[in-house]
């Protein structure tokens, strides 16, 4: 006869298993399995018709590391993602402070304003930016009126950056707001009282204390930006290749399509993300100490 405690433990284990099974099955089927397939494909060979041939090879990785097309795409994507993240942070931090310091009854409406764009499909919003940036678009019409003349804005890397910053900014602002809202601004008074000017007080007190929000926002912006392909195609004019564009092309539109090479690029991208994010966590947590 099992003791009451044993019976209870048994019952708890069964309940836990019942609760976790659906989620675990879902993740296993639709997350872990595809990841394994991608990983395995990255070591396979592609034939002339774009079919996967089950011959193990390292050629896909060698191609990526030796051809400038691919190497450049990695650098370009990493650089653009870093730039997007940093600019989002520089715009988002003051914005989050402003919202957190607003009177209580204004905070929710202001946060809603940040969220409202999400009610519209992302693609539609990016098309809207085409209208804004086009040669005969809103900005150029204005520039012509004030006598500066039209500039080429659309289909440039600058346009890609603008679109990315626009799209990712809310993901930076929300975690920053959460961190800054928790921050006790009396600490800034305490710092000032102890002889710190505004810059010193910010760097020594507010920045380290809101670092969790900065890290969360940066990660949320950096990851999707590294793999994006829509913005660079619609606003950048697909003139230069970013990681996402290359992977998308290799899987869907190349002639012949090349799943093994695309898989290898995806695996490497994940690796890059993993390394960069780990480095980032290390740096920022040191700063916190």
């Amino acid at each position, binding site marked *: 006869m099992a003791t009451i405690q044993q019976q209870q433990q048994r019952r708890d284990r069964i309940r836990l298993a019942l609760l976790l099974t659906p989620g675990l099955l879902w993740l296993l089927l639709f997350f872990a399995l595809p990841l394994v397939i991608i990983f395995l494909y990255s070591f396979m060979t592609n034939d002339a018709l774009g079919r996967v041939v089950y011959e193990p090879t390292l050629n896909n990785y060698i191609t990526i590391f030796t051809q400038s097309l691919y190497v450049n795409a990695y650098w370009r994507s990493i650089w653009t993602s870093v730039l997007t993240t940093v600019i989002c942070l520089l715009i988002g931090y003051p914005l989050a402070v402003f919202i957190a310091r607003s009177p209580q009854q204004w905070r929710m409406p202001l946060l809603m304003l940040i969220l409202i764009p999400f009610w519209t499909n992302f693609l539609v919003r990016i098309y809207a930016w085409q209208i804004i940036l086009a040669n005969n678009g809103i900005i150029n019409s204005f520039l012509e009126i004030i006598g500066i003349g039209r500039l080429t804005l659309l289909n440039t890397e600058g346009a890609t950056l603008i679109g990315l910053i626009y799209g990712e900014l809310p993901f930076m602002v929300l975690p920053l707001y959460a961190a800054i809202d928790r921050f*006790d601004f*009396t*600490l800034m*008074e*305490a*710092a*000032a*009282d*102890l*002889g*710190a*000017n505004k810059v*010193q007080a910010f760097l*020594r*007190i507010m920045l*380290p*204390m809101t670092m969790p929000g900065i890290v969360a926002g940066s990660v949320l912006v950096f990851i999707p930006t590294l793999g994006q392909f829509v913005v660079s195609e619609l606003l950048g004019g697909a003139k230069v290749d970013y990681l996402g564009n290359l992977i998308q092309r290799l899987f869907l539109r190349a002639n012949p399509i090349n799943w093994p090479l695309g898989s290898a690029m995806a695996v490497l991208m994940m690796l890059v993300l993993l390394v960069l994010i780990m480095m980032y966590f290390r740096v920022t947590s040191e700063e*916190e100490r």
Partner: protein
Amino acid sequence: MSDSIAIELCDVVKRFGDVVAVDHVNLQIRDGEFFSLLGPSGCGKTSTLRMIAGFELPTAGSILIHGREMGITPPHLRPVNTVFQSYALFPHMTVAQNVAFGLEMRKTPKAEIARQVKEALELVRLSGLEDRRPRQLSGGQQQRVALARALVNHPEVLLLDEPLGALDQKLRKEMQLELKSLQARVGITFVFVTHDQEEALTMSDRIAVMNKGKLLQVGTPTEIYERPNCRFVADFIGETNFIDGVVIGRDGNYTVLETPEGLRLRGLAARPLSDGTAVTYSIRPEKVRLLAPNGELPPNGLAGTVMTVNYIGSDTRITVRINDQRTIDIWEQNTRSTLDRDEYWQPGEAAVIVCPPDNALVLSE
């Protein structure tokens, strides 16, 4: 304590929108003094402190620290330090880093910082806790860190904003005495904001009582308690009996007033009052004497009946009814054990109360 002035407030006004938080306050705080700003919440005491620190700027008037006009000088350039009500310790720094912060801001050499931090922590008896984080400390310890963090900068004036408010009663009493002795040792001027009259009386050299933005009275604890200059101060500091009446004349040093029901009482007035002035007679319960009736009423005596007798250990609190509308509270100190006494006041007993006129005040508003 010297006669030089550490802080001077000249006609200081602070408005927040339509609300006048501080209303034409003039005040001089002397060097080396333990000075308390006392008043109920919302009386303007914290706003006054925040203006001295520079967190708020006066709407009008000026603030001088050791003769220097502060004007719009930002907090980080003022020669004062603050101990905040919530302590405002930096949670991501250790105790030692918290205390070192002010010195680092002033570019003190590293070795010197280490020495001074050690000294400051010894001063507040926190040696050995250098590497703890604030959240690992008790409320009392956090309080000491806040003190050390401020004192290590050797401010010309230390501002304390209800620093003992968050502590429990016992710790509070301990810290009161410790703060007082600390102040005596370091010799720095303390400006202490509190709403606790007992705390102010215990610790202060001088007290300023504020209400509704106005400064009502400045004086030593004894002056504030024994010679309150208005009804509010008499009421706010300690317990007192109030009897309303009008002035009907003078009798030597004393002012005589008459209550609506015709009782006549004599007491001290702060200034000459003309006949007919509405006044309040104020006498502390421990100053009233209770006698057995023996025919004639003594001067300033009132006949009454004992209503309640409450023994509370150190003294016995007796309520005597004078007439239908009025009762007077009397505290008699138990200088002898009541167990040894043959008899004591019983409810229902007739008694005579005497208000010694030298201990009774006639207050005009």
